[in-house]
């Protein structure tokens, strides 16, 4: 973290530190380093990446942690070799036509655009195992639906803002639904329980319904 305009550290409560970064790429890069080098840092209970920040919560010695992080060289990009998960997806979602219209293409072309990108789990939130996936070009950002659905089926592949997400379980949701995957994203009895964890790379492939 040698850039003078680089990460800003904010104290949170009594024992947490929020590291604020300039981009999702930098968040992924810092998160990868934190996983690699956690042993050399003061004890941290939770490392929580998000859109532009990494939260370090339950820190044993916050001042020492801040000093240690200040000495880190942080690459601009995360490592490109994270584990890769492929999600076979049936693109028959109720919002596919609307998303295609927003992009100014046919539904078939929208599927090609979505399957053509490689994604990365930027962070999890909203529900256990719900990953916020980056990787679509900024011109494909779409708004949330005006009114959320009261129930979105498990496995729904959806878009909102710059993110793609897959609903691990049935829940209410306001994202635009492109389709569905049959791959179980969350299973408490499985180790690991979550298929999509921060840093995992993801590809979608189009399957027949």
């Amino acid at each position, binding site marked *: 973290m040698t850039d003078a305009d680089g*990460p800003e550290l904010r104290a949170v409560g009594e024992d947490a530190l929020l590291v604020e970064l300039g981009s999702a790429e930098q968040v992924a890069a810092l998160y990868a380093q934190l996983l690699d080098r956690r042993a050399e840092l003061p004890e941290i209970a939770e490392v929580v990446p998000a859109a532009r920040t990494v939260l370090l919560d339950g820190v044993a010695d916050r001042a020492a942690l801040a000093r240690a992080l200040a000495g880190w060289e942080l690459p601009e990009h995360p490592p490109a070799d994270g584990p890769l998960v492929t999600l076979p997806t049936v693109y028959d979602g109720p919002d596919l036509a609307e998303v295609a219209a927003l992009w100014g293409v046919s539904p078939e072309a929208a599927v090609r655009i979505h399957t053509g990108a490689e994604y990365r789990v930027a962070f999890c939130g909203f529900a256990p195992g719900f990953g916020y996936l980056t990787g679509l070009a900024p011109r494909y950002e779409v708004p949330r639906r005006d009114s959320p659905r009261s129930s979105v089926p498990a496995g729904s592949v959806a878009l909102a803002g710059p993110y793609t997400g897959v609903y691990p379980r049935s829940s209410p949701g306001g994202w635009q639904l492109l389709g569905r995957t049959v791959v179980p994203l969350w299973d*408490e009895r499985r180790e690991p329980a979550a298929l999509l964890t921060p840093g995992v790379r993801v590809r979608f492939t189009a399957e027949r319904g």
Partner: protein
Amino acid sequence: MELVVERPGPLTTVQDQGRRGVAHLGVPRAGALDGPALAAANRLVGNPPGAAALETTLGGVALRASAPLLVAVTGAPAPVRVGGRPAAWGAAVAVGAGELVEIGAATHGVRSYLAVAGGIAVPEVFGSRSADLLSGLGPSPLRTGDRLPVGPPPPAPGGELVPLPGPPAELFLPLRPGPRADWFTPAAFTALARGRYRISPASNRIALRTEGPALPRARTGELPSEGMVLGAVQVPPDGHPVIFLADHPTTGGYPVIGVVPAAALPLAAQARPGTPLRFTLLGRTDVQRRAR
């Protein structure tokens, strides 16, 4: 050994010390809202302090023991009956096979804790037996007829009751400003420091909601989602501060004006709707603000 639910009460859940180390998967911490009361109940029956017990909400609970058991009730004071006879609150009480354990409505406070020697032995999820009402992880809230397994009784005899503060008639919560204090006007901090708030009836295990002066923002727009801590005071667009409790979401997009230290939250979780609330602003903590 098991406890069979005869009357679940308005909301009774299994709680222990909750889940740590899995927030990056979107898994909330959960766990007893009044941790010291949980530990006290467990101590009375000889359990480790974080053993799983039952957390009631205002209206109590009734369960039938399948075998002789040792139980203790702490937290919100409430009448306790065992086998139809009045029994002590805040003490270990022997329950005979087939006898009913009843906790009545809390006379003060919100949440009573019923510990049983051996602990509630439902399966662990991520190292905890706690019910998480935000994400639905862990056991569901109790329903009539549920059978709760009880673990083998601990070898140690029970300890003494540790005196704990009673539920507050008026709540004073310390608040450490940040990390998004810069999203608010100076008037917001004046309102926080001088304003008279009340605990809202919309409060639950996820958050204490408040009624009182709204906190004006210095900037508009949305904050990209960021990690949330226990005790974070998030301010949604309506300006009314929301204090995160154990089942809080792991990330959120509303700015956090400050954080209530975790040590102040057990008492806060015993404050009933309508309880007057005032914030006490602590000094800001300086970390090395910008990495070099």
